[in-house]
């Protein structure tokens, strides 16, 4: 198992390196730079452009800039300063904003797992009944209705109509409730749908029939035999979804004025804020790759058959 994990981490580092390299050259190939008129609304005189580029090393050949970036990253673990928010360190921005995004994302994932899985299981065991149909309507709504509509609706209902929850801002637990719910809406639907299908396919298996024939109690049957098998596809989904929920919260963060990373992720590409783009890409790719490793480990726990590496040891 240890060897397996080390091997995976080795691959992960290689993948991250490739991602950094690709992102670096791609972001620099996009037309415009941090001081072009799409950001400033005006043209700067040549001297000013020259001074800005010299100061931030943008006047050097791209390959030299790449080398400088890697050197700073590997030796100091420093992504550099933002080119738009003059003097703001990318590391510090991540340190300040990532926990905020993580709180919203984490709460959303918990809601998704609880409600989504519960809904999927109930619907799966009650196939064709009214409860199943209600669940399917929820699934379709959750997948089709964009998150900003859900968010505005939540704001209107809980904020304006009943006036019980704050509709924007950041500070206490209260402020996190609405954005977490809005963010989890899609995940509830997705987990619900997959869980239902998964339960349905497992229920038809021979071993379930055998277990039933052996007289296993219903609760035991559901927990030990059905769920244990039905959860595997959900674990597969979980990894990429974890990533999606952290990176994909731009809209929710904007609507609820949550000071998270989503804004930087989207704006930095539009503004050609090279250092910010690279810093965030590295953060997200590392998170993504490690969530995949996590999924692999989880597999082993959930399903002993997948512990392929046992033989390796």
């Amino acid at each position, binding site marked *: 198992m240890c060897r397996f994990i080390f091997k995976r981490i080795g691959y992960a580092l290689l993948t991250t390196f490739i991602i950094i390299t690709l992102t670096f050259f791609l972001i620099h190939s*996009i*037309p*415009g730079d941090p*001081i*072009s*008129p*799409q950001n*400033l*609304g*005006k*043209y*700067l*005189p*040549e*001297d*000013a452009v*020259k*001074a*800005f580029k*010299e*100061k*931030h090393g943008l006047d050097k050949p791209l390959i030299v800039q790449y080398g400088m970036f890697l050197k700073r990253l590997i030796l100091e673990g420093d992504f550099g*300063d933002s080119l*738009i*928010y*003059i*003097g*703001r*360190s990318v590391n510090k*921005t991540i340190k*300040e*904003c990532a926990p905020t995004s993580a709180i919203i994302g984490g709460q959303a994932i918990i809601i998704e797992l609880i409600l989504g899985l519960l809904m999927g299981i109930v619907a799966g065991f009650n196939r064709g009944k009214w409860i199943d149909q209600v669940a399917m309507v929820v699934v379709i709504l959750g997948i089709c209705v964009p998150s900003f509509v859900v968010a*505005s609706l939540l*704001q*209107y209902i809980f*904020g*304006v109509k009943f*006036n019980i929850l704050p*509709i*924007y*801002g*950041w500070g206490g637990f209260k402020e996190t409730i609405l954005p977490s719910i809005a963010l989890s809406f899609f995940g509830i639907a997705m987990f619900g749908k997959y869980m239902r299908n998964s339960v349905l396919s497992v229920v038809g298996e021979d071993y379930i029939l055998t277990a039933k024939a052996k007289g296993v109690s219903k609760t035991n049957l559901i927990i030990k035999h059905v769920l244990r098998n039905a959860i595997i596809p959900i674990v597969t989904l979980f990894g990429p979804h974890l990533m999606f929920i952290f990176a994909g919260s731009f809209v929710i963060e*904007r*609507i*609820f*004025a949550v*000071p*998270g990373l989503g*804004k930087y992720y989207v704006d930095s590409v*539009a503004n*050609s804020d090279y250092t910010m783009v690279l810093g965030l890409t590295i953060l997200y790719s590392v998170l993504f790759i490690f969530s995949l490793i996590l999924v692999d480990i989880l597999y082993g726990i959930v399903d002993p058959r997948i512990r392929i590496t046992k033989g390796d040891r």
Partner: protein
Amino acid sequence: MQKRRILTLILVVTLMLTSLLAGCKSNEPATTNQPEQTNNATENKESKDNTIPKGMKKVNGILMDEEQYLRLVEFEPESLDTTRSSISSAWRAQTPLFEGLTRVEMTEDGVEKIVPGMAERWEHNEEGTEYTFYLRDAVWSDGKPVRAQDFEYAIKRLLDPKTASKYGWFFCGIIKNATEFNGGKCSADEVGIYAVDDKTLKVELAKPVPYFMQLTYFIVFSPLRQDIAEKYGDSYGQEAEHIVANGPFILKEWVHDNKLVYEKNPNYWDKEHVYIDKMEFVNLPDDSARMQALLRGEIDAAALFKREWKEKFQSMDGYQFIMKPLAWTEYIMFNHKDRYFKNDKIRKAFTIAYDRDELNDLVFGGGRIPPTSFVPDNIMLGDENYQNKIGNPKYLKKLVDENPDPKALLIEGLKELGEDPDPAKMEISYMTNGNGDIPRKMAEFFQQSFKKNLGVDIKLEIVASNVAYDKFDGGEFQIFETGWIGDYNDPSTFMDLWKSGKQGNYPQIGWVNEEFDKLVIEAGKELDPNKRAEMYKRAEEILIYEDCVCGPYLMGTVNTAIKDYVNNYHEFSFVKRNYVGVYTKGRK
């Protein structure tokens, strides 16, 4: 008998009067909250003047709420370093903290007037090339005196190529040797700004600058403490604890992307007139969340972009509504090297071929102002409104009025060029500035208007802004839309753009007109306001009416809904806000 009748009459009249007074009185309590009322009119009046209602206080003779605070909406500033920021969200956050040599106040008749700030008084030589400012005895929020050296340091830091400021160009060509120092061709000592002593600042200009006083309140011309800026180095301006202020407020807290919390500066020189004790700028980027926060009373004012919201707040009680033109023009640009657009008649035809009111209504929900000329209506020249001073020639309107049939004009132009006179055969492409909702809607509007009024089928090239500017710089465009927001209150901020070649902003469009260049350069150093106005008038005539270099399609506005308990809250054309004198009265 007679006496008795008179007495009875007096009695009746007195009774009637008393009941009348009582009648008056019964309407009062709701507004004044006074429990006991007397029948005596004079006494009643006196008590109203002297008793201060509960929850209120009286400062400088003004009755206001006991608790004075404001909650406003502003975006996350890129930096609070005045020498290294370049966009208005940053300037807005800096305005409460820093005060320049002068400040702007709104007079009762709505004129924006320059009043002394850090400088108590100032003088200039006859040629208008040397200004001397005498500073008042003001102190920074940490108790140290504001010195002329703080201004000298700020400007030299701004211009220093090592600072790489995005606004370093601002004083180039204005302050002596600024261009040279900014380009690395001379030392800081040769720049024409220096402290004579702690309280005297001298500014030598590169040429007579008739509008120089208009620059003295611009936030970029704020003082900066060398010891503070050097202490924090490159990261200066990114945290609340970096800021030492000389303005009406100090920064208490800055939670990035969330809020800025200001408190009244106890060391501000004019603190008697600062009534707000605490102020919060919350970052609320989403339109509808902002409006709901305003409806819930969580914020005191908000900018409006959508027509529905505007109508809602205008129809509701409890709000004031400000709509004011800004120094902001948007225009479509033609490529003067293009096969078609080198002809002025064709440019004119495309400029007049659509209805600006309709565009404003369809695309901007009526929230902007259709232009009638190039320089915005609110721009001043000296002490007078520029457009009024030159007699409102409305060159754009004149162009439209004189050419009722744009299609005929277009065909005439095509014939002059020896092209096929059938407009349907023209190949024209229109490049948007961005691929969002508004640029798309605008492109479609132009497409339909040009089809209907000119018979031309234009091709739309909907691209992101960075791609658009890239192509624009390379001259790969026919029609492109862009705009300009002025930096200071003088026509030159709008006219200097169009100087030919590298002197101006748009060498890409390939327009050269020597008369225009000469007029604008001369007007930039002429001290007689009447002569200047004449020169700009003629230059504007060339730009819009004769050569039709670009086609203005809108003037930007500021639209703000404000709770009506907020008093003295104004929107200014250039300065971001003046918080001196603002107070609330009647907040529930």
